[in-house]
């Protein structure tokens, strides 16, 4: 009797603590501060471009806009570089470009990875063996080296989109592995067997039964893919293999190195891009840790 009462009481307790929609999200974020912090930081960085371009003239991110080599002042709060770019405008114009490369490469990598992971995990057999071997082999290849060779061989001018595609070519392996592992687990669940027995086609099973349960892993995989893609793009750009005509974060680092900004004490040139990269990665890490909690309820710190 007491057990029943306490069960009913706890059920009600649970029901009352489960509001839906936005309220649920806010409530969840209160319990998962990392996710909240991650959303806030990454969101703020994403807004820098659209909001900033209304406040300052992004055409000043091109050379010959201001007096060159000036330290920060009222007119140019981030100073200027040796070719006359306004470095605040460069940040506002360049951050969205870097994020575009990262998100484009991350999204494409994730899509390919999801497709391959889902099919190879679910279908199994020879197909699975081939995919698994390809992924494991390619993961051992030093990615930056391959990217350097690809980028150096591109005819014509490298644009932001092309950068994203180049990096995407080596960004799909980790998502494939992650998704495939999850699919192998989920495949054995009861509701999957039930769906199959009830006559659902394989495709429908994948899309309507598996995919929703994979969403936390997809989100975490996306964050991971984006962070590696941003890192790879900055690495390539700092080496001079990026979109040289665009003021991305990596290109700012490239110009700062070329013109010896460090030795010449031009801290306003090399410091902001580094800080921006650090903040971006902090945000992505928090986001990823927060999503990890959703995916693995056992990791929940609070209830």
């Amino acid at each position, binding site marked *: 009797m007491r057990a029943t009462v306490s069960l009913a009481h706890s059920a009600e307790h649970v029901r009352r603590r489960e509001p839906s929609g936005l309220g649920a999200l806010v409530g969840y974020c209160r319990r998962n501060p990392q996710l909240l912090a991650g959303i806030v930081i990454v969101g703020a960085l994403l807004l820098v471009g659209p909001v900033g371009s209304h406040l300052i003239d992004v055409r000043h991110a*091109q*050379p*010959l806009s201001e007096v*060159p*080599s000036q330290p920060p002042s009222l007119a140019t709060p981030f100073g200027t570089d*040796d*070719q*006359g770019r306004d470095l605040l405008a460069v940040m506002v114009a360049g951050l969205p470009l870097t994020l575009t490369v990262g998100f484009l490469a991350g999204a494409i990598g994730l899509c390919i990875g999801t497709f391959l992971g889902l099919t190879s995990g679910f279908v199994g057999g020879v197909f699975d063996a081939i995919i698994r071997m390809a992924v494991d082999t390619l993961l051992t*290849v*030093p*990615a*930056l*080296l391959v*990217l*350097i*060779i690809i980028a*150096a*061989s591109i005819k014509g*001018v*490298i644009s932001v989109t092309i950068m994203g595609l180049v990096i995407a070519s*080596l*960004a799909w*392996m*980790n998502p494939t592995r*992650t998704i495939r592992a999850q699919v192998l687990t989920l495949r054995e669940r009861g509701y999957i067997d039930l769906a199959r027995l009830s006559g659902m086609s394989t495709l429908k099973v994948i899309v309507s039964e598996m995919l929703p349960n994979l969403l936390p*892993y997809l989100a*975490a995989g996306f*964050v*991971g893919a984006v*962070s*590696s893609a941003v*890192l*790879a793009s*900055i*690495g390539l750009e*700092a*080496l*001079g293999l990026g979109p*040289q*005509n665009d003021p991305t974060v990596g290109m700012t*680092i490239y110009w700062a*190195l*070329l*013109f*010896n900004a*460090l*030795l*010449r004490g031009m801290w306003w040139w090399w410091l902001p891009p*580094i800080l921006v*990269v*650090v903040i971006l*990665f902090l945000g*992505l*890490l928090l986001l*990823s*840790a927060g*999503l*990890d909690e959703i*995916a693995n309820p056992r*990791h929940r710190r609070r209830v």
Partner: protein
Amino acid sequence: MSATLSRRSFIAAWTGTLAAFAAACQSQAVPVPAAPTSGVAAKPPAATSAPAQAATAAPAPGATPAVAATSAPAAVATSAPAATAAPAVVAAGGLPTVARNETLIMTVSDTFTQFQDAPLANPFLRAIQRNGWHFMFEPLFFWNPYWTREVKWPAGVPGNEARIPWLAESAAYNADSSQLTVKLRSGITWSDGQPFTARDIVFTLNMLKDNSPDLLFAFDMKTWVKDVTAADDLTARITLNTPNPQFLGRYFSWFQDNGFPIVPEHIYKGQDQKTFANLDIEKGWPVATGPWKLVSATADQKIFDRRDDWWGAKTGFRSLPKMKRVIVLPRMEDAKKVQVMINNDVDTTHDLFPANIPALLDRTDKAIFWVDGNKQPYGSVSPSTIMIGFNNAKPPYDDPDIRRAINHALDRKQVSDVVYKGSGQVSELPFALLPNVIPFADACADLLKKYPVDAPDLNKTAEIMQSKGWQKDSEGFWAKDSQRFPMVVLLSPGFFQDIGPIFVTQWRKAGFDASFKSPTDFNTLTQQGNVDVFIRFDTALFQDPWVSLDQYHSRNFAPTGQDAIQPYRWKNTEFDTLVDKLSQLQNNDPVFMTTFQQAMEIWLRELPALPTVKWYLRVPFNLTYWQGWPNEKNPYVCGGGWHRGAAGLILHNVTPV
């Protein structure tokens, strides 16, 4: 699992960023062995501590970027695989120790971080770079573009005019400049003891003629040389196809990058001339006449030890150079060049961007530039000019009006102010203003009024473009039939990253959708015509502008897809006739001047290329271990360690501090 992976990559990112930051803060260790004890020269140690100083354009990364992508190990630099090929590239048994103050170290040459031609020492191969053969071999003559009658040569340097006889004693043309007779000095020997004779000259010229156009200078020899004979051991007679009083100056009188060496018949004979590497340390190859022998050649450095049995010391021509060893390192990024100069790890480097020179001068008082007192513009006027070139065979660049419209969009003074902080000067003619060329430049004054070159005027640009049917599209760029005006500007890699983007920005402001690229295969692309616009150094000037104008001769033309000798691909028969006439005249002939003016009128009207700003050779020299470097007060050469016309003489003239 996903959080763990992200944390790993996050840590990698932090470590990478901090490592990049820390490494960039420290001074870089230069990969120079203080005392190479083993036979193998040092592997690239800078790889792990120089993440961001990697090659800008090398496809194979020379240094290790500390930023790691995903879970991939960072790329590791490797020596060029050819360094371990069959010919010995390092002396067996190791190298003797030589003290730092008896060694001269320079970082010069053409590629960053690693030599691309480590197993080669044949000066005629297209792949060869300027990393040591150019002072191992000696020329028939040296020439100094800065010589004036007031300049006295330093003691011990023979000759009393601009041309210094070195391997040759004298040279003379016949009456109509169709035959050149060269008399050699006696007692010259190759490094293997064989005598250097006129037969080596005969062999070299014939070898080049037979292998045109695959070897450097081969096309030129085929064009000009009819016949070459050795009248005796010390006399060579060269008969030309058409009279050419510039022949000696252009090919056998070394200055800056001009001229080629004579190679030993007894080594080259019987080899496959198109591929002969000429490098084998065990055999003592390359065999040359200069006081140096190559003892180590890897992708990271080339080491030359002094050869005390040099013919010059034996015959009393000149005493041996004062240093026992010369080490040549590959080119470095500007930031690293400044650091190695501050640390006294090297004695001279390639020239610096003007923006970096105050940073160097602030931190060391041992650096010396050409201009006395290390004042602006720091360097000497280079015999090469910076030109913006068009592919004149590719529409729409085949229209001289369009080229003029593009020229009106340039503001050269702004470039000089922004890039050179005011110390640059506008250049309106396709040749450098060396002292003996100024009369020719003055003769163009009226022509420049008629066809002005330095004339920034965006309205004129718009007027011309519109008259040709181009309209500005919604984003303000010139377009026709919804195709934008194609303008990809190629920059010679390693140079022009400071001015290239400025020109591109000026063109964008004028409505051209321009962008720039610095490809590693710049030479191939421009030679084959896969290019719209390019920026490069022109051929260095000699005593008069003929060699500069000759670059635009249509014999240098080839259709797109085939290698052209010069990338301009411009054809103008009237101009050709005038330039041919110039090649046969002496430059003090009044007819030369009038012919020159006629040719310049055509050139300025058509503008197949655009002069930009004067180039100065801002070469830093280090006074810590060596003194007697060339400068304004002592202008015995003009150039840097990578120039064949300068390196050898610099090595002969500097003395220990």
